[in-house]
């Protein structure tokens, strides 16, 4: 028992060491932490709010000596503050949506795999049907139904499509686990299905789930900014990377910085998260290399 616990800890420590040894993943982690801190600390420290107007500096280009580092938009709103506010909102929404969708996917996939039979077939068939539709349709149907503008709706909409991949992967892994001797032993000693799920299946899925959760976060950021770009997500005066990029694209002739600043932050954020996710996958699953 003690040995097993030690081996379990060993896996995670091993993974952490392997992750630390990858230069790209380490750099991504540091950059991501810095970006998060900046997004959390800088906007409250600035004299400008995300919706405060500065009438003396309308559509001002960026400059380090200027009153606004990243310039302002047509209404004189500070782009530095708005972009970081957007980063914060994107991170918040994507983390919450990832947690929800990974949770649903984990429960759905593990249950289907464990129960088996008709129920399993029906559950996975449902996933297949949703999977065969481009995710945007589901989101558009949902936002037609529920209306748009509230962050809760946005969360539901993107979490509703995010769980499908996790459910499929967890389902496959559960089927593999189910055939192993220790599950059979647990069944033979009379452990109920719920007990097997909690004590034996879920802990063994942890590695896979951590990897997919990390890879889900950039996906969710993309969904969120995509919807906000189309006008179905975060609404003015609130700023998200998506609606900032949309506003910037409309003004790019006269104020290209309005497009370039939020786009650069989005690319940076996505790049870091993807590198980190790839690094974690290699670290937790040595076979993948």
């Amino acid at each position, binding site marked *: 028992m003690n040995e097993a616990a030690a081996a379990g800890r060993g896996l995670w420590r091993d993974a952490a060491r392997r992750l630390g040894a990858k230069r790209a993943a380490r750099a991504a982690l540091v950059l991501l932490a810095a970006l998060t801190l900046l997004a959390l600390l800088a906007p409250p420290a600035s004299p400008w709010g995300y919706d405060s107007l500065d009438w003396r500096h309308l559509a001002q280009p960026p400059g380090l000596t200027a009153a606004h580092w990243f310039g302002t938009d047509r209404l004189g709103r500070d782009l530095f503050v708005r972009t970081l506010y957007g980063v914060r909102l994107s991170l918040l929404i994507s983390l919450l949506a990832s947690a929800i969708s990974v949770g649903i996917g984990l429960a759905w996939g593990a249950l289907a795999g464990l129960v088996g039979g008709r129920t399993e077939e029906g559950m996975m068939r449902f996933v297949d*049907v949703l999977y065969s539709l481009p995710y*945007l349709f589901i989101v*558009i149907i949902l936002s*037609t*139904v529920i209306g*748009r503008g509230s962050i809760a709706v946005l969360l539901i909409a993107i979490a509703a499509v995010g769980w499908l991949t996790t459910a499929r992967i967890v389902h496959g892994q559960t089927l593999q686990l189910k055939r192993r001797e220790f599950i059979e032993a647990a069944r033979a000693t009379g452990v109920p299905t719920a007990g097997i799920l909690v004590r034996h299946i879920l802990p063994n899925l942890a590695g896979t789930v951590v990897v997919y959760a990390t890879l889900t976060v950039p996906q969710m950021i993309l969904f969120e900014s995509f919807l906000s770009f189309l006008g179905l997500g975060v609404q003015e005066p609130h700023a998200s990377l998506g609606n900032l990029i949309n506003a*910037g694209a409309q003004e790019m002739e006269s104020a290209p910085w309005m*497009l370039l600043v939020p*786009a650069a932050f989005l*690319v940076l954020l996505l790049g870091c998260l993807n590198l980190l996710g790839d690094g974690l996958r290699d670290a937790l699953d040595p076979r993948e290399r």
Partner: protein
Amino acid sequence: MLSYALRRIAVAVPTLLVIITLSFALQRLAPGGPFDQEQTLTPAVRANLDRVYGLDRPLAVQYAHYLGALARGDFGPSLSQRDFTVGELIGQGLPLSATLGLAAVLLAILVGIPAGIAAALARGGATDYALTALAALGIALPTFVTGPALALLFGLHLHWLPVAGWERGAPRYLVLPVVTLALPVAAYLARLTRASLLEVLRTNYVRSARARGLGGARVLWHHALRPALLPAVSYLGPAVAFVVTGSLVIETVFGLPGSGRYLVQGAIDRDYPLVMGMVIVYAALTLGCNLTADLVYGWLDPGARRE
């Protein structure tokens, strides 16, 4: 082959039916009607509106009517654009959207697959690194960033191409949209082709072909390429789905009068018939392309026909 095709069709048709039913149920049962966003109407006007559009009937009757109309190709009137039927709106935009999507997929195949082959053959060399890095960038960047960025560079700075808009019979308006839409698909195809060709080149039959004294080009054409292209073929179904969603952004960014913007505007206006009509048309399109990709895959790989 025939039974494989029938099995594939037997999967696609119920999926479409489920989608029709699901989107119908979701939209009819949800709170928030199409007339909720305008100024308050008197009950009498409201009742008349509901009666004209059939919204006061029992759901089962509405559903049966809808299915019957769909079978005749009639998607009903648009609730937000009163002078048009949904069918007319879709018909106006679809040719342009289809041209855009088809051109993007073709360009992606023509660029992505040769790039993947070149990278695999130059494995470890500078060409390989450059192409792999380029592909990683193409996959990571979302179209709503690359679209405006390309328009900024080639439209506003270099003045090579128009930034936005559309003129019938002027293909230069389509260059930037098609390139933007093709970029991620080409990048993904290049990555897939590179990985699978490398794998195939390591197999025993390629080695024995080499051992029999066949030259590199002959081994590539006659032995390695066909199995190496299988992953790319099976990606074409999802690629079409990607292009369909991507075209919504592209049409918004470049101001093209395609049908994608109706889907977005319909969702904003909560125009049930318009959104449902678009979803069903696009879903049928996506499923049809998935089916075609599956059939081509089955034709190329006899092993896939046995499940």
